């Protein structure tokens, strides 16, 4: 067929442009698309409102006060009226031995918490998963979940009583072996093990629920297939259960790393005393003493902001590393 007979031949490019234009004119704009989406899914957004309000009121509005970390704050002049002083408070903090000690303690306690506290719920979940007797399994789970529901004050009371030099069970047992009683809670070297141990005891059981839920999500046919292949229970745990719950473990690890500097503040306050400040004082207790008790709100705000920035960097780094090497990430 000659090109003269069909006017479309040789106009391909023009026709494509025309078609694209026509398509574009038919496609709704982005604003219209958002509008359509809101109209269609408005119920979901209504349900979201309380959470957004909570975040705005309790987490975002207080951020306005963060600026006092860079100001010479006076409660009489208010946040807006106080003069800017730049990074002076941060310089003061890093020249303050107490803050540096608190920072060091925070890092050490957090590291121990991560080292001993993070694997424990995973181990507990794996152990619970292997228990075949349902009655025993439920009883054991209840026992290890229980401390989570007990107030920190009572937990601290139990710990103080247990480690008491006069009537505490620990010193009583040590006495049976002829060991002299030790007043553990006044000894700086004992504070960290007791604190970390208490945290593990209180939370490991409850935290294991997340891993038990992840294990429950593993398809039973994977195990059946492995049984037919000849795998033992131990091999199934290593080769199926743990790899299957690895994404959950990584997510929990990222969250944990993000909260690393948030050492259980109230438990430290309840357990520490001036004699153990050397190993027990952490950034949060330092902020409490300086800010609330000492009235240095601006300095405390600077310490708090530093804490938050470090936590942010930690969580970003952990997430990026995890995304790169394990395909699992928070976002």
């Amino acid at each position, binding site marked *: 067929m000659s090109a003269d007979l069909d006017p479309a031949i040789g106009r391909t490019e023009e026709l494509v442009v025309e078609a694209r234009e026509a398509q574009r004119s038919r496609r709704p704009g982005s604003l219209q698309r958002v509008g359509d989406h809101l109209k269609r899914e408005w119920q979901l957004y209504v349900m979201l409102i309380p959470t957004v309000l909570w975040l705005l009121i309790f987490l975002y509005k207080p951020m306005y006060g963060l600026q006092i970390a860079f100001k010479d704050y006076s409660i009489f002049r208010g946040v807006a009226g106080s003069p800017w002083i730049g990074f002076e408070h941060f310089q003061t903090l890093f020249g303050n031995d107490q803050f540096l000690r608190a920072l060091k303690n925070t890092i050490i306690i957090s590291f121990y918490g991560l080292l001993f506290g993070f694997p424990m719920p995973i181990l507990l979940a794996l152990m619970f998963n292997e228990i075949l007797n349902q009655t025993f399994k439920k009883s054991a789970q209840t026992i290890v979940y229980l401390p989570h529901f007990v107030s920190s004050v009572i937990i601290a009371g139990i710990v103080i009583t247990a480690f008491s030099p006069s009537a505490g069970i620990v010193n009583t047992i040590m006495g049976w072996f002829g060991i002299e009683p030790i007043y553990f809670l006044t000894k700086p070297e004992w504070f960290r093990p007791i604190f970390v141990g208490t945290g593990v005891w209180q939370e490991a059981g409850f935290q294991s629920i997340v891993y038990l839920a992840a294990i429950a999500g593993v*398809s039973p*046919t*994977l195990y*059946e*297939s*492995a*049984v*037919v*292949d*000849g*795998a033992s229970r131990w*091999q199934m745990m290593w*080769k*199926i259960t743990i*790899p*299957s719950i*690895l994404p959950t473990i990584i997510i929990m690890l990222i969250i944990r790393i993000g909260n690393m500097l948030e050492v259980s503040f109230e438990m430290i306050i309840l357990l520490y005393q001036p004699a153990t400040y050397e190993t027990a004082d952490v950034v949060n207790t330092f902020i409490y003493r300086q800010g609330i008790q000492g009235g240095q709100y601006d300095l405390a705000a600077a310490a708090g902001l530093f804490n938050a920035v470090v936590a942010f960097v930690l969580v970003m780094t952990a997430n990026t590393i995890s995304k790169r090497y394990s395909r699992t990430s928070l976002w």
Partner: protein
Amino acid sequence: MSGVRLDGIVKAYGSVQVVHGIDLEVKEQEFVVLVGPSGCGKSTTLRMIAGLEEISDGDLTIDGRTVNRVAPKDRDVAMVFQNYALYPHLNVADNIAFGLRIRKESKEKIASSVEEVGGILGLTPYLERRPADLSGGQRQRVAMGRAIVRRPKVFLFDEPLSNLDAKLRTQMRAEIKRLHKRLGVTSIYVTHDQVEAMTLADRIVVMHDGRIEQIGSPMELFLNPANTFVAGFLGSPPMNMVTAMVASGDQGPVAEFDGQRIQLKPIPSLQNSVGEKVTLGIRPEFVNVGDQSDPRRVKVDVDLVETLGSEALIHANLQGAPFVIRTDTVGQMHVLDGISGFTIEPHLVKVFDAETGQTLPGQVLEQ
């Protein structure tokens, strides 16, 4: 002899018995399909053979050895599951090698076995991929690779094609058949799809309510169903059932219903059944619609004609119940619109006892 023998196999959960004493012998290299509706006990039976369910009573023998109390790993069986059971964190090669690694085979043997199986199943280009990056058919092939790599004595398939779409299922069905021919391993296959059963099996075991209804080759079961359940289960569309009364006709016994009659094959059991109620089984493909002027024709009310290319399905009503006719379209298109009845050769009408549903003796159709 890598055969499998089930003697009076029973499965009970507490007081509830779900498999009631199954007797079955699967010969070496045979491909046997257990087929039946959901809940008939076919998967439970297969799982008992695999060792995933305890046997409540009876004896299970594999390769001449009673294995009731033998652990699954020591039965030398391999199983392919409906949802593939692939390890999501392992790539294809590691999935295939899993069983060999568990058995602590040498690295060289594992590598060569994986390569060989990958080649057989066309998985060589995908060995480094994870299951999530594979299509349904490829995943199913990996699952089969995991089974064949160990060179077991018996393959067990638990509805392995159920998660695939119709086209892929047909393709994989052929692959399983080819694989069985190539490897010659005794295979027991569970499905609820009678087409899979008909196309794959050397012998079909039809199960219902925890019991075996009939065992035989696909054509034996198709042509000579032992009862109305088997007759209705095998064949697509299923066999039409018509309730009728046996009467004496000029040329032997006839079946009468709604003022119509069908000539029956003169078998001795029918001579004694005159006046008794029977169920007639009429295969949709055995009826003839070519001569609509035949006075012997059975009249039906045609509801719908579906033309499928080379054949057509005629949906009609008889006795107020659906009655389906399958016929060739070639040379018959002119007839399809004017169908009002059908004729059938007497020996092609199956007669079942109306009460027990069992086929009356003496009506074996040769293949």
